[in-house]
């Protein structure tokens, strides 16, 4: 658990109406992704909705990669965090449609990744260019492996500063 993303200001309220929804969003904004803890679940774009129910809340979560083992951890950390804040019961539902893509990662999330040393994905509509080195910003980089330590990353090397780095795959 490293840097925690700053809380959204009061105006950043997405589609929520009530105080409870705002509180839930604020709590989720602080929840780190289990595998890349510098990015919050909301900045990763996996929280699809927060709904207040007659009792408790329902959270819609979408998986990043279908086989990502973090999905189960995300689910339990959402439940644990909200319950610890006195919000119960918490129901987590899977939302597959529309499918998650790296375009769901927020600008703030992309910046957090870059600072951590992971080259963020390009926007899917952007031209396909090698990712810039997160250390020295050189665009002279080469791919070492299309797959990396987690399903979402590939491995690169910077031809300028020679540092290896991970790239968040664009899907």
């Amino acid at each position: 658990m490293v840097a925690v993303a700053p809380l959204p200001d009061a105006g950043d309220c997405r589609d929520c109406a009530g105080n409870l929804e705002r509180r839930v969003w604020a709590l989720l904004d602080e929840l780190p992704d289990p595998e890349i803890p510098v990015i919050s679940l909301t900045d990763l774009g996996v929280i699809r909705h927060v709904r207040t129910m007659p009792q408790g809340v329902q959270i819609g979560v979408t998986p990043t990669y279908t086989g990502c083992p973090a999905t189960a951890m995300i689910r339990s950390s959402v439940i644990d965090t909200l319950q610890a804040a006195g919000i119960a019961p918490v129901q987590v539902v899977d939302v597959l449609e529309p499918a998650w893509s790296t375009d769901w990662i927020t600008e703030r999330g992309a910046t957090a990744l870059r600072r951590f040393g992971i080259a963020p994905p390009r926007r899917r509509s952007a031209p396909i260019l090698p990712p810039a080195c997160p250390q020295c910003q050189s665009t002279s980089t080469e791919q070492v492996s299309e797959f990396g330590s987690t399903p979402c990353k590939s491995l690169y090397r910077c031809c300028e500063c020679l540092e290896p780095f991970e790239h968040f795959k664009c899907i």
Partner: protein
Amino acid sequence: MPVGAMRAAVPKATHAEYVLRLADTSLILAQRLGEWVGHAPALEEDLGLGNLALDMLGQARLLLTHAGQLDGTGRSEDELAFFRDGPQFRNFTLVEQPNGDFAHSLVRQYFIDAWQVPMFQALSGSVDEDLAAIAAKSLREAKYHLRFSSGWLVRLGDGTHESHARTQAAADSLIRFTREMFEPDAVDQACLDGGIGADLREVQAAWLADARRVFAEATLRLPEAPRGAPVGKQGAHSEYLGYVLTGMQFMQRSYPGAEW
């Protein structure tokens, strides 16, 4: 089918069977790919094959859950994966084949990837909204896999004399298992007519176009698929499936209900 045309109703059992075929093909391939972990020729490829396995497993979990809901038995993904016997599995015979050498596994992977891409493309428009969502999600991953496996096919085929010979031998021996991927049976036809399934002729046309291009670039010969291979999607498997299941199901059979 024209907009507004009447679609044939598909019996639930047929619909469930169709989804189960897709699920089992991903599941058994995930298990085979997992065998490579710690054994691939280089660290990067070890990571690659392990990641492919993970994606296949993810697809299988979503599809198995959906199949269990459709068939009315309410079986969970785990019950379907661990408590069915060989003849109840509906995967293509191709994916249960032993890994062989690296070329063998990569040719098998290419054959499946080049099938999954047009298949998931078509299924993204299925009237079964859950299946359409799973297909749209999996399509992104399948495209990435196809780039990986076709890249390797070219590197191996257009590589050394040894790598070329081994890759050609793998294609020659595995091609017969591709026949069932494109020959529609009653289940495929019913699901196509009902708007649930894909048109296998279109899938085959896309597969062939890609395979001809990649094999040509790899300086390999794309063999013709002869008749007579087992039809895994109907439950007629090769001897190898039993060994895969033994490894995969051992824990749950010995300690039913065990959890992490």
